[in-house]
């Protein structure tokens, strides 16, 4: 887990290409095929970049869940649950994990920012024709309006994701729904 957290996404991506595409020849090294032309190939090409980007999230979610659970564990209502004589598994499921979920979700939303940033690197590594190629070209060419445009687009996406997260959070926690 610690190792997984330490590997930067572009290093992981590059090494995976080296291993799976170059050495084992299991997959193509990257590229893009439209979904409607070859769904299988599209998903195959999508899988590696998606996995690599997801790696950052795995680590974050792991950390946050742990911290959140440690924060909930000493709360009074957990003691109440134990005082009721609930089995430990049930205490954890219904009274710890359920409560710990909200903060995890929020942090997830906030880290979407880093994630969206990470896609720039990963798209570059896997030759995925997303926003990253024009972005990098624009930065290289000091094309200021283009860079600002792309940054604004991604920021908008980021805001949208966080809006969805807030709505989900409200669904999870009745206190927010009321307020």
């Amino acid at each position: 887990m610690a190792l997984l957290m330490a590997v930067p996404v572009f290093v992981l991506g590059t090494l995976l290409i080296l291993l799976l595409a170059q050495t084992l020849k299991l997959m193509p090294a990257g590229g893009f095929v439209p979904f409607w032309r070859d769904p299988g190939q599209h998903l195959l090409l999508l899988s590696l970049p998606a996995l690599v980007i997801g790696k950052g999230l795995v680590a974050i979610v792991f950390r946050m869940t742990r911290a959140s659970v440690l924060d909930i564990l000493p709360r009074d209502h957990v003691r109440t649950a134990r005082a009721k004589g609930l089995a430990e598994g049930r205490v954890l499921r219904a009274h710890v994990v359920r409560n710990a979920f909200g903060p995890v979700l929020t942090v997830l939303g906030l880290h979407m920012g880093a994630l969206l940033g990470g896609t720039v690197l990963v798209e570059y590594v896997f030759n995925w024709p997303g926003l990253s190629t024009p972005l990098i070209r624009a930065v290289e060419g000091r094309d200021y309006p283009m860079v600002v445009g792309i940054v604004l687009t991604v920021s908008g996406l980021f805001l949208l994701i966080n809006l969805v997260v807030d709505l989900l959070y409200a669904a999870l926690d009745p206190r927010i729904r009321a307020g």
Partner: protein
Amino acid sequence: MRRLRPRLALPALLILSLVVIALAVPFLGLPNPVRQDIPNRLTGMAPGALLGRDEFGRDVLSRLLWGARISLFIAFTATTIAALAGTLLGLLGGWFRGMAEFLSIRLADVILCFPPILLALLVVTIMGPGVATLILMLSILYTPGFVRVAYGEVLSTRNQDFVTAMTALGATTPRILALTVLPNIASPLLVQYSLTLGAAIVVESGLSFLGLGVVPPTPSWGLMIRGARATMEQAPLLLLWPCLALTVTILAFNLLCDALRDAFDPKSAAGAGARPKPRLVDCLAPGLFPSRVDPGASLSVRGLTVEIDTKRGVIRPVDDVSFTIGAGETLAIVGESGSGKSVTVTGLMGLLPAAARPVAGEAVFEGHDLLRRSPDQLRALRGARLAMIPQDPMSSLNPVHKVGDQVVEAILAHRSITRPAARAEALALFRRVGIADPERRLDAWPHEMSGGMRQRVMIAMAIANRPALLIADEPTTALDVTMQAQILDLLADLRRETGSALIFITHSLGVVAEIADTVMVMYAGQVVEQGPVASVFAAPLHPYTAALLAAVPQDDAAPEPIPGAVPPPHQFPQGCRFAPRCGHALPPCGEAQPLRQFGNGREVRCARAGDLRFGRAAHDA
């Protein structure tokens, strides 16, 4: 701080050696990292080029080490700038509040919300790539993190007693900040610093990899990976070395950060608890040597002692506590905060935190010793034969479940009936504890109810399985006066109806007379006096009991508060623990006092018991 463990030493050593290498690179006599040697491009390991040569024939080992120098230089410089600027802004914002707070914290929030790589790319667009750009950009990127940490810590530190005291003594603000706040926030800042170093290296190498960070031909790990990608087929090792170097470096910083965090945070370092060992004789010949138990008693506790591992050593918040409570009786445990009342009962319920454990004594409940039951056996008793009403109904209900469901859950934990049947029972319980409109309330969320209502829910939950012993831990402290009276009446009624025994914990003697049969006064982890309520109240034997009684507001006498406070467990006096606050102390009080029988079921722990007389003549008149 505690001694450095290997967890801290290993990453620290690794980072130290990296720094030393980075500093020493120019003196190692390595080949020039930027000198090209095209005829020898991509050659493997050879003398003169230990790790081979890259796509321009440059020496890979040399580039790797020079790359470390560049990466660490950028990371350390940027992080230090960010730490200084961020800490300063956070200190100012936290200390002066108002405008300074608004500017520094809002600004930090805005930057924190922005995807970091995008921000970085914006800066590169304006300034062009290069080391200076990287440092500037990373400093901006990581300042908010430090602002947040410093700000949060200042807020919590500035209200602490010693800071208030210094302010009152007229110390100037910079002096207070430098002397008290800085040392207090040093450890979280150090954690943040190590975290940021790792993050800075990730962003720097990522940008260099995109060709937007360090400008070639300057060696950098990110650039090396970028270059080696093109020749991946011919020379896969070229790719491997910088990837490895980068990953190991970041790993070392992350591990250091984790270890620092754990070393500074006492919460995560609590030791695991152990239960008292079963008596050997009980294992060999159960029942042959029965412990001293009152046969008719619902609960009989003998010599209960609880220890907690803390940073300052092992403390004993509960020391040799004994009491007996018969079926249907009510025992009041009285004492100020910190006297060990709550720890005593949480110990009996088996709900002590992991660092605390009962180390001696026994607690026989319905024929079994609670302290030596397995966790599963205890669980089967808890909420069924043995139930608890907590102190704070606000936090004791789970905010994300409906209150009815939480009561149903308590019923289903111990009885195999259907959910609808349990729900019907919950409804009846709600009615019994006086919750208005119970059908609708079953589906209410905790935050929709008042404190009194929530405490009624907690009581409904506690009596759901008709317990033989109900433990109420200061059940009315968090409520207003009217509510208190109602809840007390409810408890008294319930006890009469169900015939269950009740342990009632309180720090005020006012309610004891109304509800309890016997009273046990605790001070600093020990029982100092116990006996029937009427006789203890009429003629207390211990100065502490007398002081508690005098502190109860009466119509005709002003309450006299007890000067001083209960000492914390690591500072309990050697002799009588009440001596520092006792107005009757004599030389013999310096000895540890045993609990002595005093006839009439009364016990007292005082050298001068019997010789001192505390009447309640004034009150009785």
